[in-house]
């Protein structure tokens, strides 16, 4: 095994190395050092950025590990997406961690990095075994991270400084952040899904006799038992994306888990889930438009509808964004349901847009809440006047999420609808565009709080430099790519095309063990 065979995997490997470096640095730094957080966080961001830069330099295309992994534009696109999300997530979390868990910061970064490794492998996996392992590598650290704020519950329960709180009485009633509950819900649903996935896979793999995606189906109609297996896999993977009806953990976890982590959780693992879904259902089935296409379309419709409707009455912005995320993933599934290159690229584009918009929104929310505020609409009251920067950013992210022009989200929705329309999913396009208006309704409720409600306190929330930088980066990306979407669109198209090519030309035949020629 030469390095060359691992070259396509160099990015995840680099991140693995980064995780180890951070782990070691954590051990090396004195536990009570004041600069511990800055060093660890800075290191993580630097390493992630380094890998990101490397992704532009190193050619990662090709087969690795006997064809169990294929590197192409698609994997590169997702790798960058995860790296950016990771870097932003770390930037956003740094000050929070420093303040709340100064001694456990290393764990946080390491776990995050390991999760990213898993994510980065998923899009290129061509072997179910690799896929499952990578998928779990992505998922298991998240359970831990969700429970990371285990001591937060007590802290939030009693408002430390009533003068800075929105309303003491309100704050006392407000649901405190029971990280344990958030984590346990995420975990229970996740573990169940894993079990369902595994059971489904056992049927599929058993029938096929191979774990290679390319060999799962022959030309003939799959046996019923295989179909059932595939459907169970679909159900299992849908948990991660959070589509209806596997979405119920989403708002609760978003509400309970630490917000900087939720910012990451709400975008990166979803992209990972989508990647897994694409791998299994497009590559695994050899493009058979079967029951699953329709099933995915149904899931998309259900997610768009239920997610948007449920977001309407929410007053806690985290829950609101949670349900909106359910709906947003419905849109992505709409793109997946097209099953063609264009759909895949628009899905990739959408996910990239979603990273900036949704992370940005969560980070703004975190910035407001972190300085003695709350996460609900009342907490945002008058934000635009307390801090024009945060107000403007929040507005931009909300508009982007709602799909309003000159924000990246507009193009994302537009491309998806266009692709879906071209694939003949006219009904879903109509449904989606009408529901987008419902979406706008609740996003504007948030904007309303930030812009129209009188502020209850004049002082701008204190925002740390890293968090501010993260928000600014999101804002620049969401607005800049909104004004000039061509580069991202090109690269997403390329990504979609590369995946689709490997589909149409057929993935290389399953390579027999010991054949190192590739």
């Amino acid at each position, binding site marked *: 095994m030469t390095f060359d065979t691992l070259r396509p995997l160099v990015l995840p490997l680099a991140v693995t190395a980064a995780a180890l470096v951070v782990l070691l640095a954590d051990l090396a730094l004195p536990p009570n050092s004041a600069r511990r957080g800055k060093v660890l966080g800075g290191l993580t961001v630097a390493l992630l950025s380094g890998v990101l830069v490397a992704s532009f330099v190193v050619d990662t295309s090709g087969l690795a590990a006997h064809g169990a992994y294929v590197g192409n534009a698609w994997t590169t696109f997702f790798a960058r997406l995860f790296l950016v999300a990771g870097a932003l997530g770390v930037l956003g979390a740094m000050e929070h961690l420093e303040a709340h868990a100064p001694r456990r910061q290393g764990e946080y970064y390491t776990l995050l990095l390991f999760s990213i490794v898993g994510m980065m492998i998923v899009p290129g996996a061509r072997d179910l075994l690799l896929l499952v392992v990578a998928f779990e590598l992505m998922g298991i650290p998240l359970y831990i991270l969700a429970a990371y704020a285990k001591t937060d519950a007590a802290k939030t329960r009693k408002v430390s400084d009533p003068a800075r709180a929105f309303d003491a009485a309100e704050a006392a009633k407000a649901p405190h952040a029971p990280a344990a509950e958030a984590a346990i819900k995420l975990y229970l649903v996740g573990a169940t899904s894993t079990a369902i996935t595994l059971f489904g896979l056992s049927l599929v793999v058993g029938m096929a006799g191979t774990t290679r995606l390319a060999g799962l189906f022959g030309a003939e109609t799959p046996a019923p038992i295989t179909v059932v297996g595939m459907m169970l896999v679909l159900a299992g993977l849908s948990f991660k994306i959070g589509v209806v009806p596997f979405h119920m953990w989403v708002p609760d976890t978003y509400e309970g888990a630490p917000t900087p982590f939720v910012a990451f959780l709400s975008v990166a693992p979803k992209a990972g889930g989508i990647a897994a879904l694409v791998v299994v259902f497009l590559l695994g089935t050899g493009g058979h438009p079967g029951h699953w296409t329709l*099933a995915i379309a149904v899931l998309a419709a259900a997610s768009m509808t239920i997610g948007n*409707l449920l977001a309407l*009455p929410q007053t806690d912005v985290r829950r609101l964004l949670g349900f909106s995320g359910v709906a947003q993933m419905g849109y992505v599934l709409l793109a997946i349901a097209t099953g063609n290159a264009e759909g895949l690229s628009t899905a990739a584009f959408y996910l990239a847009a979603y990273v900036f918009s949704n992370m940005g929104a969560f980070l703004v929310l975190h910035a407001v809440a972190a300085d003695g505020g709350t996460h609900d609409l009342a907490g945002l009251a008058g934000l635009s006047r307390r801090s024009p920067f945060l107000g403007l950013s929040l507005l931009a992210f909300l508009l982007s999420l709602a799909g309003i022009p000159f924000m990246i989200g507009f193009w994302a929705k537009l491309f998806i609808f266009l692709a879906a329309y071209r694939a003949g999913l006219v009904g879903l396009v109509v449904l989606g565009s009408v529901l987008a208006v419902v979406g706008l309704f609740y996003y504007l409720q948030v904007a309303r709080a930030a812009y129209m409600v009188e502020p209850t306190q004049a002082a701008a929330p204190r925002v740390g430099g890293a968090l501010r930088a993260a928000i600014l980066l999101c804002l620049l990306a969401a607005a800049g790519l909104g004004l000039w979407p061509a580069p991202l669109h090109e690269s997403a198209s390329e990504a979609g095309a590369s995946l689709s090519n490997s589909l149409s030309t057929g993935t290389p035949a399953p390579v027999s063990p010991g054949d190192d020629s590739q």
Partner: protein
Amino acid sequence: MSLPVGALPLEAAPIPAFVALFAPAVAALVLAAAPALRRRGAPASWVTLTASLLATAAAVTLLVTQLREGGSHVWMASWLQINGAGVGDFGVRLDGVSATMLLVVCVVATCVQVFSLGYMHDEKPPAFGRYFAYHALFLFSMNLLVLAPDLLQLFAGWELVGATSYLLIGFYYQKPSAGQAALKAFWITKLADMGFLMALMVLYKTTGTFRWDAAVTAATATTVSGLLFFAVVGKSAQFPLHIWLPDAMEGPTPVSALLHAATMVAAGVFLIVRANPLFAHAPATRDVMLLVGSGTALFAACLALVQTDIKKVLAYSTCSQLGYMVAALGAGSVFGGFFHLATHAFFKALLFLAAGSVIHAVHSNELADMGGLRRRMPVTATTFIIGAMSLAGIPGLAGFFSKDLVLASVEGRYGWVPFGALMATAFLTAFYMGRVVFLAFFGEARGHAGHAHESGGSLLVPLLVLTVPSVALGWVAAPLAHLSGATYELHLVGVVPILAASLGLGGFALAWVVYGRGTLVVSALAPLERLVATRAVNRVYEVGYRRVLLVVADVLGWIDRYLIDGLMNFLGWSAVAGGRALRRVQTGNAQDYVFAVVLGAIALAAWGLLP
């Protein structure tokens, strides 16, 4: 599209035509654009008056030219551009009719403005300036109408005089009754104007132009002329749209003289004269005109009998005289109608101004507050009596000739019914004018009348000026007829003139007996008074407005807010309510979430097993 014979580009129009049209326009613009000037009052009046004098001079020049050279000329430019072609003519059309009318309008307007200098003197400067600004605008609009080369420009002028009338009736805008009267006048004439607009559309569709001399079929001519006549009924206050005119007396008296007696209300008659080519092809319309005109003449004269307000008497008299004109036009005598228009303009303006002079002196409109003014205001009294005699058709005065012409034209039509009506009207006219004369100027002074003084120069000069045509215009009927392309022969001896003259004299005599001597009390008028007091025609409109229009509007408003908007609200509400209902599923119990996952998985698996 070919221009009519004699059409010239606008640049070549003679300077007087420009002056007549644009001098008042410039005055109006200056007064609109320079509030400082306007609000100072007196300077504004001079601006307007200068413009009017210029316009009058121009009108004289134009008339003289017409008398010398005759012919008809059009100078114009296209006002609209549609499908690559000009549509609608903007410019001037000079011929006998427009030159005559222009002069009448300008002279009366100038007289009225001079009169106003004195009459409105007590107004605050801003109001005084505003008044003269309106006058400038009015003169421009009226000249625009008179000089119009086609019906579109005529309509523009028509609407603009309507708007000016609205502004001037409502001049005392702080008086609620003035506001009501202004609205009523505008609404009713506007309703009638819809007919004009429709006529324009029909004409445009069939001919592609708005010219009245375009070749049309008889059917089109009937439609267009019928629609135009509907507009005339409103503007010229014919039954049943006459109700606005008496109310319009809420405006300052000079305004009543100019707009609501001499010129604006006569615009309807002028329109028929202008559009004669259309009306000539529409016998049906003419028949209706004859009936409506003569009916209105008699009806309004009856109403005039019992008015106690001197201006209202004159207002109903105006209705009645306009009925004469319409009847003449309906009978086919274009010049008859037009000539009566001209004479009426002068003597009715004279009457109104003289009445204004009286009102100025006694501070009341009511006849009951006057009396014996002949000694205190000799000039006013004399001119008023001359005007009244002219109106009553006393031989030798202008009114006699024109009325004679009208009566002659309807002779024998419809079994003499219109003729009879107009003859009766002639008698009644003399009677009610006699009534006013004897009540106001003879007998004992009542109320303030005892302290009245003769008005000043600026009030009297216009009276004297207007007396001249009121007396003498009849004797120049022949050249005027020639200008209008008609012929006129003076015949003083005949059944009709003698009958009319004696009826006029008889009316005066009866009035003298009843109101001058007081020897005869006319109890026959009592039922008429009661009938008038019911305001039956007005009631119909009031019901239409308050009980129908406003109620329907309220119902529609309700429907819009509660049903149509309600539907939108309901849709929005149901989305939110749906979200609220769905929230219950999110119980917070992790096991329920897992249950959903399992259900979803089972559903998907079942879906997969479906064939």
